[in-house]
Every structure is written in structure tokens, then in C-alpha cells.
């Protein structure tokens, strides 16, 4: 077995603790025992590889999945998947899902009294290109109420799921929008101690990807754990 380096661990405070009591559903689902530190082995430095054929190139356009166009403000969400050294994460799968413009998910559990949109399913996927870039065309998701506490509302967000090169780099997160007045009140957004880490979940409005007369652009880069410089074997 050749010596292969593991992946870096999170810097203190930059990832959420499991138990975050103001996020009520964490209380009975957060592990109570301390995690057991696992040095990375071949099982963690490898991970699922998806063939390019997995991805339908049209799946990145969430506005073209039905006969008509969805209601709402059309937006372009794009960015790069990189590691902590800024190296692109190429040919990795990115999955997204979101509420429609009215703040309603196409899901049987979502009973929010806002209309479903027959022209919007709210899911997309893409594979990053040779520079780690991805790009989705969608509509800006609406804010919506939830049952966590009195008058609780989730800020507008898009869910992202990214595999990266290894089991150790798997990430599921949420992208938020700049200037959202609900962010200071959201226990999920605020679950991470490090303020700068939280703020990196907020996308940037971006002129460069804005299409004149058509759609505003938002930029959201995703950073996966970088590689250790030293071999994992002692």
C-alpha cells in the first residue's frame, strides 16, 4: 500500500456542533457520546465516483423541466467547488433542491399554505467542469414558516449536496442570499460558532454572471476539506 495523505479536519468553530438546542429537532437526534477520532484510511480517502453519463446536461436548468416556465424571479446560481488550497474539484456531482418562489416545497410533508407551481419541481444536479465550476438556472426560492419556535421563518435558501473526491469530503449545506432579514433569527444558519464561516454560506450578487434583461446572478463557491501534506501512515 502506497502512502496516501488523509484529508484535513475542520478548523475549530467552523462546523456546527451536533447539539444546538435552539434548533429543536437537534435535541433528540444529536449524538451525546463524543466522536471517536478516525485517522483516514483507504476507506475514507476513496469515495463514490459518478460517471459523466450520470448527469443529464439539462438537469442544471430548473426552469425548463415542465411545459411552462415557473413563476418567480429567475436567477443564475454559479460558483466553483474547490479544496482548501483553492484547487478545483473537477467532475464532482452537485445536487440542489429548493422551495418554489412562494416558499413551498414539492413534498408531501410540506403543508405550508402557499401554492405549488406546476412548472417547478425544485431539483437540479450538475457535474463540475475541469475548473470545478457549476451553474444552475432556477428561481429565487421563497422564505417560509416552520414549526421550530413561535413565528419561525426560514431565510431563503438552496440546499446543496456535494461529494468531492473522497468519503471524507462529503458535504451537505445550504446557500443563502445577501441581505436576507431573516438570517439573524435562523437557528440553522446560526448553528456555527464562527461568524466568518456562517457568512460564507451567503452567496454574492454577481454582475458577471447576471444576464442582461434575463436573470440576476449569484455566486456561491463551495470549499471541501483539503489534503494533508503528510502521509496518513506514520
Amino acid at each position, binding site marked *: 500500500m502506497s502512502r496516501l495523505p488523509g484529508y484535513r479536519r475542520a478548523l475549530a468553530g467552523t462546523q456546527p456542533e451536533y447539539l444546538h438546542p435552539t434548533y429543536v429537532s437537534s435535541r433528540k437526534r444529536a449524538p451525546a457520546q463524543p466522536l*471517536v477520532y478516525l485517522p483516514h484510511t483507504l476507506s475514507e480517502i476513496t469515495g463514490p465516483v459518478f460517471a459523466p453519463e450520470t448527469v443529464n446536461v439539462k438537469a442544471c436548468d430548473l426552469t425548463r423541466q415542465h411545459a411552462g416556465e415557473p413563476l418567480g424571479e429567475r436567477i443564475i446560481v454559479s460558483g466553483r467547488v474547490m479544496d482548501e488550497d483553492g484547487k478545483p474539484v473537477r467532475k464532482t456531482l452537485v445536487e440542489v*433542491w429548493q422551495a418554489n418562489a412562494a416558499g413551498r416545497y414539492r413534498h408531501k410533508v410540506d403543508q405550508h399554505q402557499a401554492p405549488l407551481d406546476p412548472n417547478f419541481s425544485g431539483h437540479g444536479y450538475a457535474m463540475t467542469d475541469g475548473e470545478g465550476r457549476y451553474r444552475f438556472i432556477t428561481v429565487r426560492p421563497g422564505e417560509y414558516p416552520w414549526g421550530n419556535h413561535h413565528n419561525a421563518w426560514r431565510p431563503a435558501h438552496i440546499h446543496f449536496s456535494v461529494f468531492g473526491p473522497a468519503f471524507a469530503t462529503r458535504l451537505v449545506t445550504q446557500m443563502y442570499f445577501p441581505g436576507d432579514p431573516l438570517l439573524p433569527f435562523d437557528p440553522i444558519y446560526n448553528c456555527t460558532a464562527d461568524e466568518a464561516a456562517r457568512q460564507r454560506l451567503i452567496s454574492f450578487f454577481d454582475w458577471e454572471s447576471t444576464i442582461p434583461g434575463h436573470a440576476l446572478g449569484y455566486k456561491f463557491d463551495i470549499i471541501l476539506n483539503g489534503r494533508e501534506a503528510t502521509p496518513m501512515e506514520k
Partner: protein
Amino acid sequence: MTLCATTSQTVGPFFSIGMDRLNCAELAGPGVAGERVTIEGRVLDADGVGVPDAIIELWQANSHGKYAHPEDVQDKPVEAGFQGYGRIPTDEDGKFRFTTIKPGAVPGPDGKLHAPHIAVSVFMRGLLRRVVTRIYFPDEPGNAGDFALGLVEAGRRGTLIARRVPGVEGLMRWDVIMQGPGETVFFDC
């Protein structure tokens, strides 16, 4: 290092919208070598109640102990029809079930072989980042000297080892207990 890894957020309750397309509960296609096993279980919360909105992801080597990944440079065959990836959402009672082949032993960091195991991620509403655990197999001589099992206090190792269901060939049981008595061992990965 110039950048900081993106913060994890919960998958929330509606992940099926975006994740269903890659669900996979039959990991091995027809003709893939190895001992077929079906593993079923439940994801349970602190009250022992089934978690109906969890999703489990699996990653494993084939029966030769080879991962279908460019960094596994062992001189062993990869197999068409076996990627080693699985994704199974729980049902309304927190149950999940998948069929695969028992993986072979893979190299460990101590120069010894890792006992056969499946790497597992679990995501759910209420979980702000995934939990990582492993499934090992019963009656496996390699378990006694396994690198990762050896990191775990003896009294908790059993939470990582599937149990045979008596009377049903190839059927095993393995639960994920999020919190409380019998809490599953989760790794800092």
C-alpha cells in the same frame, strides 16, 4: 491552506426532492462476485422512535477488497456492475434495507488488513452535519485486530457490527441509535 471548508447544514426534511434520483438499495448488479447480504435496520432517536426523514449513504469495496476509485492502486480487479455506492432513505418507521455483497478486506493504515466493512454517512433533519459510522460483519476473525474497531472502547464496538437474523440466509440487522442507551459509535472523520 488559503480557504476554509464550507460549513455543513442540515439536509432538512425535504431532501428527497433533490436526492431521490441517486437512491440505490441494490448495490451489486447481476453477476457481481461475492457473498450476497441484505442488511436492514432502523434509525432511532433518543426516545427510541424511528426517524422517518433520515438518509443513509454507503461506500464499500468489492469482494476482492478493491475500491472503485483512482486512489486505490492495489493490483486487484474492479468489477463492472459494482460501484460500491448506496443511498437509502428511511421509511415512515425509520426503517431501511439494502442488498449488497460482503466487501473484501482492505488495507489499513497499520500495514494490516482492515476487516470487511462498509463506510456509512447518515443525514437527517435535526442533524446539522452528517454522522459517520461503519458496518462490520459478524463472526469475522479480522474484527478482533481491526484498526478502527480498536479505536473504540470494547463495550461499544458491538454497535458497529451487524447481527445475523436467525433462519434467514444472508439477512443481517444493524440499527443506528442516535442518542442514549446503545448509542451507535460515530467517528470524527
